Structures are given as C-alpha cells and as structure tokens.
C-alpha cells in the first residue's frame, strides 16, 4: 500500500519537546509561523528570528533557523540591526506583552514608525508568565495577578494598553491585526494573518504586527479549557479581534 503523508512537522520546527505549560498556546503559534514559512516556499536558511525575554526565551531552541535571543524588550532593535544587514531574509520577531508593551514599548513604537521590514508576532496573554504571574501592561481591569492581588484596580494600576489600536495611529506600519487561539476557527484565522504579514514583508512593504491572544492557564489559575473560554468571553471583549491597519 502506498503511503501518503497527510500531516508533518514543518521544516522550520525542531523535533524537540516544548517547555511550555499544559494548555499554553505558544506552541500553536510556533507551529503557525513554521507552517506559513513553509507554505510561502521559504527555506529555513532564508529565515532569521529574534526571541524575547519571557516564556518564549528559549524559542531559538524550537526554530531551525539562525536566531538571536534579545535582552528584555529589545527584540525590535536587535531585529532592526539584523534585518538591515540581511534585507533578503524573512525576519520574525517573537515577543510577549511585558516584553513588547512594557519594557520594550519604545523599541516597538519606533520600529513601527521606521517601518522596519519585519514581522512582529506579539503574544498577548495578559500576564508575566515566566516570572510567575505578575501584572502585565495587558492585564485586564479587575484581573488577578500576583502584583494586583485584589484584581487590577485602574485607580491604582492604570489601564491596560491596546497595542494594535495605538500602533495603527502611526503612519509607518503596513499591517496590524489582532487574532486569537481560543478555538480551531480562530487558529486558522491567526495563520492567515501571519501569512499575510510575511507576504507583505517579502514584498518589501515594511512593518507588520500580529497580536495573538494566547492562554496562560497556569497563571490565570484556570483549566486549559476554561482559559480558552476566558479568551472568548472576556479577553476578546476587551481586546477586539480584527484588522487595525492594512495599507494594502
């Protein structure tokens, strides 16, 4: 009987167990990146990546391409240096919410304003995961964290930051979309968005950012199933999905 391959690991992914917690959707996003690269016909040798500080700090262990691990929040600056030296490579920058929207906000805004020709994959799970669940710039109003133990009080802690909405006000960025990973349908939509962002980059259009809502069952103190339901019911209400900028 002839064997027909119907499912395989994309070439960009290492064959290595992920360190992420059960129910975390980082792994899905890793795979989406790799699938998009493969479907666009780009060999791993033509891909460069930058990993953040946060839960994805070891992302360079999982992608089979040359990668740099950046200091906390500095990934867009590091990527700027790399991409300007190798403008012919596809460059993805992988960052969490603390990395991108707190300590690295300046790097993010200015990379977007310069219209650097790379794609930022922005993982928003509303919490500092790696350090044990502290309040993030995207922690929802009223949400528990280890540094907002009675729930985020906007009078004390201020408001969460809507990154897509904010960056879309700039002239520089070409494509900005917020997607989610809470069910199969949204995962497929997320993939479509990432692929489009990569396409824009390959066409030399410039800066793109895909914000991906991701579950953190461990620090949200929820079951994986309930965490996905929480994204659907609460997080997407506060951070509406959709295209925020598309300069075409």
């Amino acid at each position, binding site marked *: 009987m002839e064997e027909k391959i119907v499912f395989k690991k994309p070439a960009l992914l290492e064959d290595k167990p992920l360190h992420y917690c059960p129910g975390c959707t980082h792994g899905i996003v890793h795979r989406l990146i790799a699938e998009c690269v493969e479907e666009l016909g780009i060999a791993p040798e033509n891909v460069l990546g930058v990993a953040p500080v946060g839960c994805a700090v070891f992302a360079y262990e999982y992608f089979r391409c040359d990668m740099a691990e950046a*200091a906390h929040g500095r990934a867009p600056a590091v990527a700027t240096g790399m991409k300007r030296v190798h403008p012919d490579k596809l460059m993805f920058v992988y960052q969490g919410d603390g990395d991108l929207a707190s300590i690295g906000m300046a790097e993010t805004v200015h990379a977007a304003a310069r219209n650097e020709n790379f794609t930022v994959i922005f993982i928003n799970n509303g919490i500092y995961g790696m350090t044990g669940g502290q309040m993030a710039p995207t922690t929802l109003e009223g949400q528990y964290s280890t540094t907002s133990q009675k729930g985020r009080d906007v009078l004390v802690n201020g408001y969460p930051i809507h990154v897509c909405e904010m960056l879309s006000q700039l002239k520089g960025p070409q494509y900005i979309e917020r997607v989610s990973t809470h069910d199969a349908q949204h995962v497929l939509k997320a993939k479509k968005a990432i692929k489009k962002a990569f396409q824009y980059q390959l066409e030399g259009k410039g800066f793109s950012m895909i914000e991906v809502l991701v579950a953190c069952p461990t620090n949200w103190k929820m079951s994986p199933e309930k965490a996905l339901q929480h994204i659907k019911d609460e997080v997407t209400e506060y951070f509406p999905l959709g295209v925020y900028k598309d300069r075409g």
Partner: protein
Amino acid sequence: MEKTLMKGNEAIAEAAVRGGCRFFAGYPITPQNEIPEYLSARLPEVGGTFIQSESEVSAINMVYGAASAGARAMTSSSSPGISLKQEGISYIACGQIPCVIINMVRGGPGLGTIYPGQADYFQAVKGGGHGDYKLLVYTPATVQEAVDITYKSFEMADKYRIPVLILGDGTIGQMMEPVVLPEMKDPATFPSKESWALTGCKDRPKNYMTTLDMDPDRLEAITDRLFDVYEQIRQNDVEYEEYMCDDAETVIVAYGIVSRVAKAAVNALRAQGKKVGLFRPITVSPYPDKALGALADKACVKKFLVAELSKGQMVEDVRLIVNGRKPVEFYGRTGGHVINTEELIEVIEGGKR
C-alpha cells in the same frame, strides 16, 4: 602621506568606515554628535547603514543585532548615554560579539557637563554592566591616535570576538588636528564569521546568539572563555608609551588628553634638569601592568604621580600594580577643568595639592 585637518569626532567616523564599519546606530549627545552626523552622510555612500535610534538602549541593541548578523558595527555616545548602553554591552560581551563603542567622555555624575572628563574610567575598565566581563579599552591621546585606534579596533574586535571601547574625552572629540587617514578596507576581504554569525543557515547547522544558559557548568565555561580571551590580550596586545622614563625619579601616569599636558610638563621640567618621565597606558583594559610594574622596580624611580580628570579612578589600578613598592600620589580635577601644564608642574614640585 597626505595630511588632512580634521575634527576628532569626524576623523574617528571616517577611520571607522575605512576600517570596514558598515553599520552605525546612535543617539544625539554632546560632545560626540559629529560622529553620527558624519556617518549619516558617509555610510550610505559605501552601502552601509546609519540609524538614528530612539535611545541609547536601542542603539546598542541594534549593534547587537547587526554585529551578530556579521557586520562590522559601531555605536558612539558620551557618558550619560554610555550608562544607558551598559545593559547591551553586557549582553554583547557575553555573546562574544565583536563591535566598537566610542565614549567621548564628559564630566559627571548625572548630566554633569558637556566639557571633557575622565570619570568613566571605572565604568570602562571594571565591566560597566552586570556580570563578569571585561572590555578591550583604548585611550587615544591625539586625533591621529584616535584614527589609528578606531581603524585597528575593528580588527581587534574580530580577532578576539570582544567588544572594544574607545575611551576618548570631549577634547579628543572636539579638537582639530592634522591626520593621515588609513587605506579603505574592502569588507569582502574580511575573514568569514559563518561559524557563529546569524547569516542564514545555508549548508550548515543553525547558529543562535544567546546569553542565557541555565546550566551552571556551561555558564561557567562561557565566563571562563571570556576571561581566557582577556588574558590573551593582556599577554599579547596591551599598549603603552614610556616617555623619558629611563632615568626618571618622578613618573607621571596619565592617559588621553591629560597625558599630553603631562608630556609638556615633562619637557619643561627636563629643560630645568629635573628627572621626570611619563608612563601613558594606551590600553587601560587590560592595563599594561608588566611595564608599569617594571618601572616600580627601577631603583631610580622614587614616586609615581597619577593625574586624571576625576576624583581618582585610574590611580586605584596604578596602586594595585605598584603594590606599595613606591609611593603613588594623585592629582585630579573634575569635568571641564582640563589640567594645564603650569598646574601640573606646581603639583610635581610639591607646591599644589
């Protein structure tokens, strides 16, 4: 060789381009602005990249990226801006990423003054950022030396895979002197960095640049390697100048702009028959400890006088090296008060403290 009259900062910028620098990121701060200004126009002429970054923090991280990607890369700043770069410098040192960093030192602490200072010595030679590492640090005393050092720094950075810091001062950056510029190097002739650089993993296993290792044994091995490299430089590539030290009874120890004042003082005192010499470290990290130690052992040397534009920083290294063999005196002024020849002579003759 044709001489050109050039401002220190611009001469350094041109020397960097000729030494193969093809990427620069920086942020405005006085007294180094002519470096980014010059390179913003010059680098595109040779196919290079200039970026005015949003901050010093970003500038050093852009250098981290560009140098990791294999380019000869540089950033420049002055004291407060160099403080901001320390995070990135620590990462760059750990990653053994060759690059060049210029500090046109001004007076501090805080915003201090835009006038020349030498109070960033500790920061430059003791590490500066977090963790165990050292930089290769040069201290030019003339615009010509700044040119030669900048040109050579890219070679040294690549040879040892170490970040090189050029510790100038506002005077070196701002004054004009005649210089002979070196030949333009062709980056196509530089040795391959394919074994570690992030260039795309064609026909080889992937490379990654990280400074994270959760295994204490591996982390210790990485740190040991940094210090092995530093020791190799200490054995082979420290630089210094001895001026009229053969029969000197008093040896002035000074670097950068102060060493030029000291040389004038030595000349004036020698004209009066007084036995004064100058020891001028050109690398201050690693320090030329063997050469200075040999002077401390010389019978004719009665004492050392360290002169600096600080409250006493290099003097600590000199005292460590001399180690009680001879008295080590200190004279220092702070930012903007460049010691003048008469003042230094008065100090040497014992009339001023």
